[in-house]
C-alpha cells in the first residue's frame, strides 16, 4: 500500500470517532500493541530530544525501503510512533522524504504538531525525514557510482 493509501485508511479509521476519548483510546490501543524496540537501540543515539516522554527511533534500509522501529516510555507517544511507523516504515526513502504528513491534521491530532508541544511529534517527523534524506542520498550516490 502506498503512503497515500495508508494515510487515507487511517483518516477513515479516525473519522469513526465522535469524541477525543475514543480517539485517545485508539491511540492507547495502538501504543500498547506496538512491537517493542530491541533494548540495544534504546540509547542516547536514537533518542529524540525535546519530548516529555522518551522516544527512540531506529531506521535501516531493506530492499530499497526505509525500515523504521521506535518506542517510547509513554503509551500515547507509543501510539503516535505506531501511527508514523505504519505510514512510513517500508516505503521508499524518497517518498517518505517528500510526504507532507497532512493526515495528522485530518485525524485531529494537529494540536500535537506545534513545534512547542513537548510530546515531540514534530521532532519525530523531523527525525524520520532526516533518516529518509540520509538513505535517499546514499542510494543516489550508489546509483551514480554503479
Amino acid at each position, binding site marked *: 500500500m502506498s503512503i497515500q493509501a495508508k494515510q487515507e485508511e487511517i483518516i477513515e479509521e479516525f473519522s469513526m470517532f465522535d469524541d477525543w*476519548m475514543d480517539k485517545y483510546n485508539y491511540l492507547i490501543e495502538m501504543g500498547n500493541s506496538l512491537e517493542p524496540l530491541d533494548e540495544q537501540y534504546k540509547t542516547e543515539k536514537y533518542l529524540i530530544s525535546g519530548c516529555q516522554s522518551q522516544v527512540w527511533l531506529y531506521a535501516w534500509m531493506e530492499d530499497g525501503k526505509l525500515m523504521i522501529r521506535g518506542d517510547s*516510555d509513554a503509551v500515547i*507517544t507509543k501510539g503516535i510512533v505506531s501511527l508514523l511507523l505504519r505510514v512510513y516504515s517500508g516505503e521508499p526513502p524518497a517518498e517518505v522524504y517528500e510526504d507532507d504528513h497532512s493526515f495528522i491534521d485530518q485525524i485531529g491530532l494537529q494540536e500535537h504538531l506545534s513545534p512547542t508541544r513537548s510530546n515531540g511529534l514534530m521532532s519525530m517527523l523531523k527525525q524520520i525525514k532526516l533518516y529518509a534524506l540520509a538513505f535517499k542520498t546514499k542510494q543516489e550516490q550508489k546509483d551514480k557510482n554503479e
Partner: protein
Amino acid sequence: MSLNTDIQKIRKSFPILKQEMNDRPLVYLDNAATTHKPRVVIDAISEYYNNYNSNVHRGVHTLSQKATEAFENSREKVRETINAASAHEIIFTSGATEAINMIAFSYGEKYIGEGDEIIISGLEHHSNIVPWQLVAERKNAHIKVLPVNEKGELILEKLDTLITKKTRIIAVNHISNTLGTINPVKEIIKKAHNHDIPVLVDGAQGIPHLDVDVQDLDVDFYCFSGHKVYGPTGVGVAYGKEKWLSDIPPYKGGGEMINRVTFEKTTYNDLPYKFEAGTPNIAGVIGLHKALEFVESTGKEKIRQIERELLDYATSQLKQIEGLKIYGEATNKTSVISFLINDIHPYDAGTIFDKLGIAIRTGHHCTQPLMDHFKIPGTVRASFAPYNTKKEIDILVEAIKKVKTMFG
C-alpha cells in the same frame, strides 16, 4: 465564614479563572509553576504604561520621578514583607534564577576558591544546583549534597558531617517545589553560623506560602520570583545582608550600577544600585508591589488555612485511589502533591487531564536529582492556590479514575 465563601471571594480577583480549557471550566492546579495574577496587578501594569511610563533614576522630570517613586516604594514593600533591616538590601532581579546566579557568582568570585566546598540539598530545583555547579567548575570547588529521606525530608543530622573547614556556603530551598516539603532552614542557618558559614535560601516556593522574616531567620541571602507570588513575570528579588552585599563584587556592569566610569577605572554605586545594572523591569517591579499588597490584604494566615484544607482533602481523597502513590510525605509540607498512578507515565496522565480541563504539571519539575533519588522519571504534580476549590479536587479525582481505566 465558610472555606468556600473565602475561596469564592478570592477567585473574584482573578480574571483568568473564568476561562475554559478544551471546552471545560479551567481547573488550574499548576500554581507551583506560576500563579495567576489578580486584577490589581494587571491594572497596575497598564496604569504604569498609560500614565507615567518613564525610565527611573537620574531623570529630573516629573514622569521619571513618579516612576522612580513607584519603583522605590515597591522596594520598601518587599523590605517590609520579608522584614529586611534596610531597603537597600533588596535587589531587584529578573527572577529567582537570576537572583541565585547573581549571589553564586558574586559571592563565589570573592569567597570560593580551589578545593572549597559548597553544600546544597538533594531537594533542590535546578536553579539552585546549576549556578553552584558553574561556580564550582570555574573555581575548582566541590559540591556536597545534604541527603533526603524516603518521606522527602532533609536528613538534618547529616549536615554536621558534611560541614568541614572548607565549606564556604550552604544553599537550600525553603520549600521543595516538587514535594512541598518545608525545610528546617532556621536550624540549618543556626548550624551553619556556628561554623561562620553563610546560607542562601531559595525562597521561590517559600514566599507564596510562609511568613518570611529574614532577620528572625538570620538568613544571609534569600531569593524569590514575583510570578510565583501572584506578581508579574520577569521580576524577582535577591535579599542579602548588607555586610555581604557591600563586600562582594558586582555581577553585571552597566547603567545605574556605577558611581563614576572612566576607561581606566570604574567605581561602583551604593547598594542596591551596585547590583542593578541597566534599565530594570519597571512595570514588573510595580506589579510586584501590588501582588504583595494582595497577599497582605488576603492574609497569609487565611491563605495557609485554605491551602492546608485543600491539601488535607486532596491527600485523603487521593490516598483512597488504589495504585496511586504520593511522593513527598513530609510532616511539615505545603499545598503540593506529587504522585504516580500505577505505572502510568506522567505524560500520558497529563495529556488526559488536559483534555478534561485540568492544568497540571508532569515531568521532573526541574528536580532531576530528586527524581533519580526516587528512581522515577517524573511525577504528576498538583499544586494548590487559595483560589482552588474542593470541587476542583473532586474533578481531579474523577479524572484520575478515568486515566486509570484508559491505561488500565
